[in-house]
């Protein structure tokens, strides 16, 4: 007990190093995973948007779609829970400096670990529970080699690096939350991952409501949206609702995608293309 106290005093005497603004060394989104029982329907939508199926998972019914730097995984492998026809965002993978360290840091602060089910010779990607049934993966070494080389077999004859249409890139994710839950989720993303809330006057996006959190690497955003006033009892429906893609020139991109057969949801004052209506 005494020795313990001594040790503590010694530690306390040292200068405290304040944690940096990007504690995990976050560098954007590695992939977003959709789960659906109709993978081909979703795949078709993705293809009209310019994605290409580039690889297939070694042991499960999972496809990797890609364009530019955007990776989307379509998972039709039901493990225990029944998949719905409507695609849902099942996971986000964050690029971090050190996946193990990021994972341990999150657990240390009260995240729930996701038990991993890896087959032999597959990567053990650490994950914590996010909103609803979704998971948040930590991926490192994304520069040196591709995580997909291990778990996926490339589809022959397909260009493994299809270029992005009109410079499309990940821009944000919209999360629907329950009543009075904005503060809870803001705390969750800021304490565990280093996100920070934008002041209300600095807002953008096609839906001017909710709260926007900026990633510590400044490369993407999370938008938290509470239900409309008057809608009660929706706590069970918290989920990652849709993803938003960014482009340098919205009008040109829209025109290009229209040509490819993408139907846009008409709405007034749309500034950024955020097509979550993937159904």
């Amino acid at each position, binding site marked *: 007990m005494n020795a313990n106290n001594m040790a*503590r005093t010694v530690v306390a005497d040292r200068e405290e190093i304040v944690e940096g603004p990007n504690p995990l060394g976050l560098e954007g989104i590695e992939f977003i995973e959709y789960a659906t029982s109709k993978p081909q329907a979703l795949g078709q939508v993705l293809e009209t948007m310019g994605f290409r199926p580039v690889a297939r998972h070694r042991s499960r019914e999972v496809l990797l779609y890609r364009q530019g730097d955007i990776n989307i995984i379509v998972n039709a492998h039901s493990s225990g829970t029944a998949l719905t026809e409507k695609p849902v965002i099942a996971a986000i993978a964050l690029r971090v400096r050190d996946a193990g360290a990021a994972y341990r840091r999150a657990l240390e602060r*009260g995240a*729930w670990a996701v038990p991993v089910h890896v087959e032999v010779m597959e990567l053990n990607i650490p994950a914590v529970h996010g*909103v609803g049934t979704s998971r948040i993966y930590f991926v490192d070494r994304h520069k040196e080699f591709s995580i997909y080389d291990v778990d996926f077999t490339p589809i022959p004859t397909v260009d493994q690096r299809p270029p992005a249409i009109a410079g499309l890139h990940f821009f944000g994710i919209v999360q629907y939350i*329950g*009543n009075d839950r904005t503060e809870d989720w803001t*705390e*969750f993303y800021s304490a565990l991952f280093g996100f920070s809330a934008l002041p209300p006057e600095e807002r953008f996006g096609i839906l001017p409501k909710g709260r926007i959190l900026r990633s510590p690497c400044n490369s993407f955003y999370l938008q938290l949206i509470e239900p409309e006033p008057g809608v009660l009892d929706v706590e069970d429906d*918290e989920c990652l609702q849709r993803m938003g893609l960014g482009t340098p020139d919205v009008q040109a991109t829209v025109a290009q995608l229209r040509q490819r057969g993408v139907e846009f949801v008409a709405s007034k004052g749309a500034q950024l293309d955020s097509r979550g209506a993937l159904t």
Partner: protein
Amino acid sequence: MSQFEGNIDDFGMDTISLAGPLKGKLDAIRDAGFSQVMLLARDLVQHPNGWQAAVQEVKDSGLRVTGFQVLRDFEGLSGHLHEYKIDIAKSMLEMCSALGCGVMLACSSTSTHATGETSALVRDLRKLAMLAIPMNIKIAFEALSWGRTINEFPQAWDIISQADMPNLGLGFDSFHLFATKTPLDELEMLDPDKIFLVQLADFMWNEIKTVEERISTARTFRVFPGEGVHSEALAELTLKLHQMGYRGDYSFEVFNDDYQQMPLATVAQRARRSALWLGEGVLRRSVPLPNQMRLRR
């Protein structure tokens, strides 16, 4: 029970006041006109058909679950003891979530193995609250009057304020407040939105001198508000909380060995009398209109 007999919607019973299996307790509480119940983890795990069956029984009863109790001796531990308590906390949160209950009660540590260092207490409570965020559960932290480091609510409030988590707030038990004779003026510094639960109980003596006596009274001989010698103080407390803007639930935290050997309906009627006294006599709640929508706050 007709709604015209009085408004006791703000008050709920605690299963610890009643003897026997869960189903009988739920029936007695509902039959006495209550709309909510405070549950113990033991109520679920003792169920002969497993805890999921107990959850279903609670849901079928139509009673709203005021809160789920109690996580003990959580904060201030280190190493394997801390890891162990985290597992216990997770397990309780899972049961709480399955009940659709939004508040879990944690009471201050009595463990001699726990440190009293503020920074460690703050860190652990932050972690507990973080675990509860994805499940939409609020943590009500209560100062046990025989807690080792935290034994009065102003100390608990201090830790809660430092932890600064949106879903970490105060659980308030009138028994402990009266036992330690904490002045009511201290309530002034609380943020009413951060009081997540108020538990009320009375007892039969004016003063509790020793800690041992405090523990044995707390665990065996509490009575419903209005039945003991602290009725006036309880009335003052609830009025004060109301004036401050507290609009949350009140639960009767009445441990009593005698009630454990009385018919459930008799005990529930005593609780009802107590709720009517507080609801009608003290807080003067108006009778709800037919089909009135109940707001969340």
